């Protein structure tokens, strides 16, 4: 991090919390990357696996954006960017949110098509330790693994996100903490295939794509209110933060006759 000359230093306490958050996000990237690799290796022709894999891949974005922001946003302003790079995080977050939205819509379309065509996914076997093992079991194991690191990391990130009051980190923590639902939906899909219910796979894929779409919508809304200089919001919702309201009311009282706006 390169604190700019013209920015006031952040307090030591906050610096420590920010460093902690950065560490957690680096670990998030490491673990999620391992999940993405494991899932890719066993993906096969299951639509649910594919959707879950894409969701895991996309969940790398908010963590990357947080790190990019932490590194970039306190760069000193210069002649070309005279207000510095504060918005870089919001911009990156907005792009990541758009990616979620587009992929969510695409995955929903794909799962709807395979549901309508009533396609039965064909899943073969693999020879391991001298035994023929159905790849579906490996897929389930990969899905179980994909549930664990994000949930733990999501919980660990909750408190730091409140400490440094960071929207991106908070949303990322939320998405991670809810990631187990994708894994369970995927497992149900493969379990369905294993007992001959081909539709279960497409249905699970549909549920997963809905969760991607939902994340996309929430994130786009948050990113837009930051990019458009909206009033400071509460961490977990789109409501205006009570502190922002209080500051505005106080300033209004101290400077009667003037207009107070807050962003």
């Amino acid at each position: 991090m390169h604190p700019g000359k013209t920015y006031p230093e952040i307090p030591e306490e906050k610096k420590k919390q920010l460093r902690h958050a950065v560490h957690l996000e680096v670990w998030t990237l490491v673990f999620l990357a391992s999940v993405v690799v494991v899932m890719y290796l066993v993906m096969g022709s299951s639509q649910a696996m594919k959707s879950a894999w894409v969701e895991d891949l996309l969940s790398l974005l908010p963590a990357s954006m947080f790190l990019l922001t932490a590194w970039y946003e306190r760069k000193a302003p210069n002649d070309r960017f005279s207000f510095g790079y504060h918005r870089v995080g919001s911009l990156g977050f907005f792009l990541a949110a758009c990616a979620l939205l587009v992929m969510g819509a695409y995955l929903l379309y794909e799962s709807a098509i395979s549901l309508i065509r009533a396609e039965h996914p064909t899943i073969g076997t693999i020879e391991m330790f001298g035994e023929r093992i159905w790849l579906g079991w490996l897929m389930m194991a990969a899905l179980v693994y994909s549930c664990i690191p994000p949930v733990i990391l999501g919980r660990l990130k909750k408190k730091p996100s409140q400490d440094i009051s960071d929207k991106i980190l908070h949303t990322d923590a939320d998405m991670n903490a809810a990631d187990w639902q994708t894994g369970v939906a995927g497992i149900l899909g493969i379990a369905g295939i294993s007992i001959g219910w081909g539709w279960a796979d497409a249905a699970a894929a549909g549920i997963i794509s809905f969760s991607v779409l939902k994340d996309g919508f929430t994130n786009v809304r948050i990113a837009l209110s930051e990019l458009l200089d909206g009033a400071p919001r509460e961490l977990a919702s789109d409501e205006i933060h009570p502190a922002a309201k209080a500051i505005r009311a106080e300033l209004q009282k101290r400077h009667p006759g003037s207009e107070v706006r807050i962003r």
Partner: protein
Amino acid sequence: MTGNGRGVIAVALIGLALAGCDVPADPEHTTEHVRGQALIVGVTTDDEPSDPDERAAIQRLAKRLDATVEYRRDEIHHQVKALEEGEIHLLAGHLPKTTPFAKEVGTTGPVSSMLLGDKRVKTVFALRKGENGFLMETEKAIGGAN
């Protein structure tokens, strides 16, 4: 109970439920239809596959399922249709792994190999899509299990 707790219990329950069934299952019951009856294998060029590895794998599959082998010869498009309709159980006879019919049918792991142009490619058997139980039986037979 937390959401995670519920998730873990749900997964455990599914595991228990599956442990009691014959899985993976065939949505169209191919294994059931073949067992103790005839294994109907579609071929396109000769009366039976020219490749000895393919013939041996088919014999092992038939033995596994206590069935007799019956070869049916027809043009490839008719065979793919017959496979989709469940009229034949397997399609054999130097079907390359890269077959353009892979969207319409399911394919097994490699059985043998063939020269296609100047490249040696692996050959596979094709079966009805989604018949995962039958696919498992077939791949066990390809792997050498009687």
